[in-house]
């Protein structure tokens, strides 16, 4: 089982990102579940959401304590939240940032999802959309296939800019 924890702020689309990733994994023929941390969420507060991907049906409903991967959609949450908490040894971090990240003993990748969203004018109510481009980066890292990432985005959104942003993230993600 592959477990992902997504860090974001309320209103940034972390839950939708989790759902998109799970949908893409299901389109890959795998089993997947996506769920938020069941708190009283407020806009702007740090929040987490979770994705589980497995070859077999998933029976676990409890939170993910030992993720294989951490996705940070908003780097500013790292000021108050230890995003590496519980990350398995040899685990992976994907950070939304234009700059190379400084993590010890983990495989870390970065991609400027915010910059990509702004470039594609993928902005809703003043906020750049991060949950569709992040799928491109995850496809590049081999978590889901690029084909299923596009399929999932197409099933949940009609605007083509989402797929273009995912393509850009696929190209731009770097170690």
């Amino acid at each position: 089982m592959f477990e992902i924890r997504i860090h974001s702020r309320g209103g940034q689309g972390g839950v939708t990102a989790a759902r998109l990733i799970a949908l893409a994994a299901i389109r890959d023929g795998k089993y997947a579940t996506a769920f938020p941390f069941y708190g009283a969420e407020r806009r702007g507060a740090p929040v987490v959401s979770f994705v589980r991907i497995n070859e077999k049906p998933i029976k676990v409903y409890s939170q993910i304590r030992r993720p294989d991967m951490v996705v940070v959609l908003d780097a500013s949450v790292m000021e108050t939240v230890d995003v590496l908490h519980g990350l398995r040894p040899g685990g992976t971090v994907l950070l939304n940032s234009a700059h190379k990240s400084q993590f010890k003993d983990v495989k870390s990748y970065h991609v400027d999802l915010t910059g990509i969203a702004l470039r594609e004018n993928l902005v809703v109510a003043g906020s750049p959309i991060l949950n569709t481009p992040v799928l491109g980066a995850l496809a590049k890292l081999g978590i889901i296939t690029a084909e299923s990432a596009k399929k999932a985005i197409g099933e949940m959104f009609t605007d083509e800019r989402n797929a273009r942003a995912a393509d850009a993230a696929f190209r731009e993600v770097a170690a």
Partner: protein
Amino acid sequence: MLTVSTGNKAVAMAVKQAKPAVVAAYPITPQTEIVEQIAEYVTAKELATRYIAVESEHSAMAACIGAGVTGVRTFTATSSHGLLYMHEMTNWAAGARIPVVMANVNRALGPGWNIWAEHTDAMQERDTGWLQVYVASVQEAYDATLMAFRIAEHNDVLLPVMINLDGFLLSHIMQPLVADKIGDFIPPLHLPHAIDVTKPRGYGGLTGPDEHFKFRWDIERSMRDSRKVIEETQAEFNRRFGREYGWTEDYRCEDADVVVLSLGTLGKEAEMAVDSLRKEGIRAGSMRVRWFRPFPKLDLNGRDVVVIDRDYSFGFGGVLARSIEAKNRVDLFSVIAGLGGQEVTYDDIAGFIRNRRMGEEFWFGVSGDV
């Protein structure tokens, strides 16, 4: 068709296919998504239902009853305080023999405000004459909702059915869902006592002890008859759609020395615990209780029994544990866990089973180590 859905949206999708004439509902977390989705279907004209946005849950059930007595299909959804607020009318729906179908998203009761999973809300409805089923996956939420209409409206039953799904754990999780074309799986409703202005009758007027007694017995007789209808419906569902459901979902119980019983999503997590215990050489099994009313006949003879209750009856005990004890005369280890959304992992459940203390009651997180 393979799609993805949350538990709430899966219920709404099944309701859409069942095509109730009237839905009357009031919002409450974590149920709201169900009625929002139904309202969207209605607004988009994908569903020709009269959606009554009532001003309370009490009125929601009253409106379902008022609509139902004309002979049409009705649905509502609620949770927690909303369910308790309609308690007078849940009794009324069963007594008036209106086959309302309701989804209840299990949530703790205040004070203080707690929006997370607990079964105490539905347990307080156990003596009302409602059939109750507890589900543990998005797929099962969808399937059980479809079956609920067929069971409730069967002329040997004509009692309301409540589908229970764990708040957030199941209502908000996204999982794969196979949605089917249902064809004639849910036949048209023929309510024998539907209001007919050409044959005026009085309904629910002053009723003396003798008649009242007969009506009560009639509810119980239908509750007993519902067992056959439930079995037939589940068999027919399996035949048509290839998904099998029983009174319980049994996992590795055949040769088990110890069986853990629970309701809802805990039962899935329990299967993981069983797998890990088996690796240690402990022959464990899981029996997830699906139907709570009518209460299933359980085969527990000769095994150790561990029961996890995500509910409590103060001054008495875990409702599931004490029900099993009363019906099966077994000695058991009663675990109270998961109240108010307390997290219970498969490791925790494995611990309950491994370190069981027969005859005792254990409050997880309160009573110290098991």
